[in-house]
């Protein structure tokens, strides 16, 4: 037989079904969001590294001249600290994706598809290995080519002419950032096909796996030894790439986003716990007298607290039961979505046991801890206080300065006046409701503020770039020749030379070690020349100034480049390596350049001097007369044709439109998730308002009876409650707006630094502020009108017996 106090608990549960359900729902939302993110987080971090490590990513890639042959491989593989080596080649080519429109094509040349063991990829469908003249395409890249497996594509390599190759199958390469995000097609061919396309079948890249891959430093030691040895054997080592070990190119980004989501979901959980505490507080307020009676017949505070804590634990458990299973499904779904976006395969969607445990603790323990305070406070009241409680015991109107101030307000509508006073009567509840709504609003606004700031950052990045097309040539050509070749192309407003040369931080051993991934984009560092008077970029200067003519040794670093030189300041000397040569430069400025890899900018004279290419050009930027996508791609096609007609091979042409697409690809997930999160939080907030207004009305039902018995009409009562609801809502709105600012700032700092290496700007999104205002006002009206209408419908007699 269970004791009567537990029967009381069960019957109270039954009696307040609606409110209990709301509490369960609110916590379930919290548990659900925490569970979803945590499940996705654990699956994704595990699978991304499984996928990536499954490719057996190279510790380092060495670009060696002349090519890597079997004898070299055998010898290099036997050197100390080296575990495995393999020869390959990566060629930056181009593919025609629609008539006259070309897209970068990264060709990976594989000697033996069946025995490759470094940077592996998996057959997906079709031929394996590809025959001569055939190409395999990365599965996510196929859609970029606008064609199907079995069709031919037009490919152009740096040293060859345009030739057709047949797509004979698909592969899945989990080691690369997804093609659509990078706006680059990935193709896989044999050396024979390379010979057909590019004239030579030499493989120039030596892939290395070292024994100790624990850090970049650990990798650098044996690799630089290997490079020195190669040099001593008469090879030229152009570049050594050591990407961040064991890490997918987008891993940091993904973890950052998931971490932020986790923070938000925890906030949602805390909110729902606060809501539960509020509602338990309301329940306690109603039961103060019963508590007093129980104490009068011998109950100790602890025993009574036990009853209510058990109630909270029960509610929490129900919420876990409700929220946990769908969160696992949602987490798996989210993981699937992200995996698809990042192009990796989920080999397992197992969720570790501790996630279940955390969810259980979060759903039961968090509300429990938050409810402890109000429960112990109420159960400690003395019997006399409890027995005398008529719902207005301590915090009676008239006791504080604010009240006397409110009492002095003149000329307000008397209903409104009453609403104002009522609002402040139950100070404890007001505080809880206010904090709940404010926190909900704060997070909602912060989420949208961050979204706006993110978009603003991208817009800024786009606005910083004031050109339509960038073209990079395979090899430098005389400036005059380039200019005259494209001089006749219609639609061009302006052309500038923006030469480029891969660079690295100087090392005393003369090695050119960079942090670049095999795709050549992620983590790269480039030296570029620019006309000092250029209008084609307008970057925000963070320190120092922009380049001026006369800055002979001057360099401007973008913020990504600055990160390569810790503590570098304006005026400092820095040393770069350019094709094995040391270059000394003096920093004159540091500029913010969003969504652009690390770049150091120098004057054309300096660039010519260090590269030995006087009056030559290998990169140009073009401003067109019109900036729409069609014009851009037409003009780009014309320019390329003109260059090719004059014997100049285009390496890549980057349209501003493509850059936009690439960048949007990176942020797509983030924005969707932010919005989902803020909606969940808004739901918790709304539940809070409903419950708080409901409690407030129940408590004052008797008062309504009295008001009506002295002549107030139902509408007056109704309006009284609604004004109170709106008033609380508006107060919370003001607080929420204020609170969202520091919140947005810190979240913006976190994800800005991770994604852009630069904090996001603090922006208060006006539309978010207005949307939240609307939600609050409409929500307050709805939340207060429903219970108030019910109360105003009771007969006076009914209301007066209400306890």
């Amino acid at each position: 037989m269970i004791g009567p106090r537990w029967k009381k608990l069960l019957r109270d549960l039954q009696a307040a079904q609606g409110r209990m359900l709301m509490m369960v729902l609110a916590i379930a939302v919290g548990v659900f969001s925490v569970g979803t993110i945590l499940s996705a987080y654990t699956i994704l971090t595990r699978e991304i590294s499984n996928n990536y490590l499954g490719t057996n990513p190279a510790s380092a890639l060495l670009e060696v001249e002349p090519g890597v042959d079997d004898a070299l491989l055998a010898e290099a593989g036997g050197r100390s600290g080296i575990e495995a080596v393999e020869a390959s080649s990566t060629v930056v080519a181009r593919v025609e994706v629609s008539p006259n429109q070309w897209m970068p094509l990264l060709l990976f040349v594989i000697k033996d598809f069946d025995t490759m063991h470094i940077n592996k990829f998996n057959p997906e469908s079709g031929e394996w290995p590809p025959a001569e003249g055939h190409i395999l395409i990365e599965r996510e890249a196929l859609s970029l080519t606008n064609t199907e497996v079995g069709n031919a594509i037009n490919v152009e390599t740096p040293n060859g002419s345009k030739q057709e190759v047949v797509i004979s199958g698909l592969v899945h390469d989990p080691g690369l950032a997804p093609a659509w995000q990078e706006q680059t097609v990935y193709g896989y061919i044999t050396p024979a096909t390379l010979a057909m396309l590019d004239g030579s079948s030499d493989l120039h890249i030596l892939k290395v796996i070292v024994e100790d891959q624990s850090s970049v430093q650990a990798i650098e030691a044996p690799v630089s030894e290997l490079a020195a040895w190669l040099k001593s054997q008469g090879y030229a080592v152009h570049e050594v790439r050591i990407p961040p070990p064991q890490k997918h190119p987008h891993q940091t980004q993904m973890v950052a986003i998931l971490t932020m989501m986790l923070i938000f979901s925890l906030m949602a959980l805390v909110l729902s716990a606060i809501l539960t505490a509020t509602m338990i507080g309301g329940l306690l307020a109603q039961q103060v007298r019963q508590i007093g009676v129980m104490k009068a017949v011998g109950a100790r505070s602890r025993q009574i607290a036990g009853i209510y804590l058990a109630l909270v634990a029960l509610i929490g458990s129900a919420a876990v039961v409700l929220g946990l299973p769908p969160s696992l499904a949602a987490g798996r779904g989210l993981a699937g979505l992200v995996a698809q976006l990042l192009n990796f395969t989920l080999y397992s969607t197992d969720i570790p046991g501790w996630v279940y445990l955390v969810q259980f603790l979060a759903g039961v323990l968090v509300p429990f801890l938050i409810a402890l305070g109000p429960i112990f406070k109420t159960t400690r009241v003395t019997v006399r206080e409890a027995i005398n409680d008529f719902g207005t015991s301590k915090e009676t109107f008239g006791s504080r300065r604010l009240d006397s101030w409110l009492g002095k307000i003149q000329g307000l509508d008397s209903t409104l006046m009453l609403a104002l006073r009522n609002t402040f009567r139950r100070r404890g509840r007001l505080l809880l409701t206010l904090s709940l709504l404010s926190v909900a609003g704060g997070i909602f606004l912060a989420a949208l503020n961050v979204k706006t700031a993110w978009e603003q950052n991208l817009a800024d990045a786009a606005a910083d770039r004031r050109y339509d097309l960038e073209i990079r040539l395979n090899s430098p050509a005389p400036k005059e020749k380039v200019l005259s070749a494209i001089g006749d192309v219609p639609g061009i407003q302006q052309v500038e030379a923006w030469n480029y040369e891969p660079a690295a931080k100087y090392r005393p051993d003369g090695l050119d070690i960079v942090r670049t991934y095999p795709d050549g984009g992620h983590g790269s560092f480039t030296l570029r020349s620019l006309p000092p008077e250029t209008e084609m970029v307008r970057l925000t200067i963070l320190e120092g100034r922009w380049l001026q003519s006369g800055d002979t040794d001057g360099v401007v670093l973008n913020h990504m480049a600055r990160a390569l030189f810790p503590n570098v300041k304006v005026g400092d000397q820095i040393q770069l390596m350019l094709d094995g040569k040391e270059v000394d430069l003096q920093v004159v400025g540091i500029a913010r350049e969003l969504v652009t890899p690390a770049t150091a900018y120098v004057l054309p004279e300096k660039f010519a001097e260090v590269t030995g290419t006087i009056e030559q050009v290998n990169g140009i930027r073009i401003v067109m007369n019109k900036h729409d996508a069609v014009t851009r791609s037409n003009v780009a096609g014309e320019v390329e044709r003109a260059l090719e007609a004059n014997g100049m091979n285009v390496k890549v042409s980057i349209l501003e439109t493509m850059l936009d697409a690439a960048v949007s690809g990176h942020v797509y997930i983030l924005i969707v998730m932010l919005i989902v999160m803020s909606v969940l939080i808004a739901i918790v907030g709304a539940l809070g308002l409903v419950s708080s207004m409901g409690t407030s009305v129940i408590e004052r039902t008797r008062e309504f009876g009295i008001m009506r018995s002295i002549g107030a009409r139902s509408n007056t009562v109704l309006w009284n409650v609604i004004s109170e609801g709106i008033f609380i809502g508006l107060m919370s709105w003001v607080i929420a707006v204020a609170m969202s600012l520091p919140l947005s700032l810190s979240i913006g700092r976190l994800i800005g630094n991770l994604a852009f290496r630069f904090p996001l700007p603090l922006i208060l999104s006006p539309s978010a502020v207005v949307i939240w205002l609307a939600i609050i006002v409409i929500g307050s009206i709805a939340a207060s009108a429903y219970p108030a209408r019910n109360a105003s419908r009771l007969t006076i007699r009914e209301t007066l017996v209400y306890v």
Partner: protein
Amino acid sequence: MFTQVANPIKEAILPASSSRLIELRGVTKAYEVASGQFLALKGIDMQVDAGEFVAVVGKSGSGKSTLINVITGIDDASSGEVLVASTVVSKLDQEQLSIWRGKSVGVVFQFFQLLPTLTVAENVILPMDFCNTYPVRERRERAISLLEKVGIAEQADKLPAHLSGGQQQRAAIARALANDPPILVADEPTGNLDTQTSEDVMRLFSKLVEEGKTVVMVTHERDFSRYFTRTIMLADGQVVS
């Protein structure tokens, strides 16, 4: 005098007569009000012996409820000594008070104060549950026999809302008897009942006194004097007779 001092609750005064159940010495009670202090009790000395049925009477505001609350420990005295059932009430903290009260004093309120979501029998079991007095299996049996004693055994499994006022007050008395306390304290237990029902309830108290309980009761009704063994009259926080 002092037989033992090990129990701090029982130290200090022990009653002169072993039958002395309640003893107040110079008890005052001050309330903080806007204009300063208000003395609701101004130096009360009184004793109640076992087996007495004492009425506390007086005008509204004379301090009757305050006095009774001081005896049950629901209120604490500002000064003076309160000794009930060989315990110095004024020295107990809230937790000790609850335990002590549950076992030593049965409290009956004017508005019955039954818990609305529990049946009558469950209301009666509640004090046994909280004070863990009788074996779990015997509790219901005991509750039913108490309800028989107050004459509403057939209402045992109803909710309080379905009982008349008199029945509710009987149930409340049964609940006050749950842990078999020597003392019952009631503040206007008939204040909400009609004359006939009030008489029934008074007879019930009378019967309990005959069975050995000691009852202290606040009342407004003058007609009940025949039930009482003694009447204490309060005026302005002082005992006048």
